[in-house]
């Protein structure tokens, strides 16, 4: 299983029936492909819809209906559309049960940096600051390292997205949960040792006596 598949499959296990969920562009989007059978999850796209569905068949696109990346989507039966104030009211008002976002770095307090690399890449924060500050649960989907450098760091060298700690970080190696005492190593990927995880992590991790393996359905 490649890194991305491990991450999105594991994150899909965080979904619960009836949840309202916002998925960031890129890897997080693929969590929608792994909703457990029989579970009803409402996906919000922050450009103004709850109930977004998959890409429409060729020739059936509507130029008034896209995801937040501008790509054509469908609206499921029972969808609801609204303006940006309402869309972010859902996010900022604590109505969004979960958001899944990519990450560049997470610090020892669980704070995320994911919106800019000064001097290199300044795309703007879009809705990221609102999501990380307002969603009930914030799950970070990211590779454990980037070009060999740890992304779980003592202090973020990149600008923070929010002062608020995230709820969970899922990488292709580990599941890490920010707690009041520090970053807690909750799970390791199949076949990955605790030592291998520690070797690729700059921030200190709290390591319980037993660190179970992720259970990932094939």
């Amino acid at each position, binding site marked *: 299983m490649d890194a991305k598949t491990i991450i999105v499959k594991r994150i899909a296990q965080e979904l619960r029936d009836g949840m309202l969920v916002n998925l960031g562009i890129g890897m997080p989007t693929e969590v929608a492909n792994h909703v457990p059978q029989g579970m009803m999850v409402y996906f919000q*796209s*922050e*450009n*103004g*819809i709850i109930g977004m569905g998959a890409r429409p068949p060729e020739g059936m696109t*509507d*130029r*008034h*209906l*896209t*995801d*937040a*990346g*501008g790509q054509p989507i469908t*609206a499921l039966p029972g969808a609801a*559309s*609204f*303006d*940006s*104030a309402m*869309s*972010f*009211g859902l*996010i*900022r008002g604590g109505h969004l049960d979960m958001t899944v976002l990519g990450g560049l770095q997470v610090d020892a307090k669980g704070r995320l940096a994911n919106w*800019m690399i000064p001097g290199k*890449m*300044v*795309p*703007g*924060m*879009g*809705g*990221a*600051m*609102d999501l990380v*500050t*307002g969603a009930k649960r914030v799950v970070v989907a990211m590779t454990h390292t980037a070009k060999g450098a740890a992304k779980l760091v003592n202090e973020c060298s990149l*600008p*923070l*997205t*929010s*002062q*608020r700690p995230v709820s969970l970080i899922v990488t292709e190696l580990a599941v890490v949960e920010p707690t009041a005492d520090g970053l807690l190593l909750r799970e390791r990927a199949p076949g990955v040792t605790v030592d291998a995880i520690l070797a690729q992590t700059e921030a200190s991790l709290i390591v319980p006596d037993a660190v179970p393996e992720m259970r990932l359905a094939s």
Partner: protein
Amino acid sequence: MKLACQPAEAVAQIPDGATVMIGGFMAVGTPERLVDALLEAGRRDLCVIGNDTARPGVGIGKLIVERRCRKVIVSHIGTNPETQRQMIAGELEVELVPQGTLAERVRAAGFGLGGVLTPTGLGTIAAEGKPTLELDGRTFLVERPLAADFALILAKEADYHANLSYTLTAYNFNPLMAMAARTVIAEAETIVPVGMITPDDVDTPGVLVDYLVGTP
């Protein structure tokens, strides 16, 4: 109110240097005919308020590529490399605002509020130079209302009273901007008789609209 006028006539009101809100999210819900008319009219030094700068050649991205903006106030420029280039070259001022805060700032101007109290952005670059307010033990960023001289918005339908309705993900900033600009210019994809849009389906009451541009 001026009904069924041509795009050129409507945008003729907009002088160089004006602050112009333009609806749309990645150009979905952007009034392209009005943007084109603005380009053709040769307007420049604009301050444009919108969600993003779309892509080169699309929506607000057209104004960027043609270098008609001195400033943009947006939440995202990542999909338009030309915006980033002009920003880094010092040719374009870019004020980045968290998207939810941007929506509330526009709404605050339109709804007569003095500002927005939000935790979003606290302790980040987005808070730099902004006042904070402590209230009942919590700290909030005080964000200013964002008004404009003009708003260019896109509706799916308009009636003869200029009542507007939007659809799907093409609402985004349009109904908010219709409240927040001194002069509102609306482009409608369809103009229908009064009564075709029921009172419950009107998203923007026609009294807010100054110019209504129909389809060619």
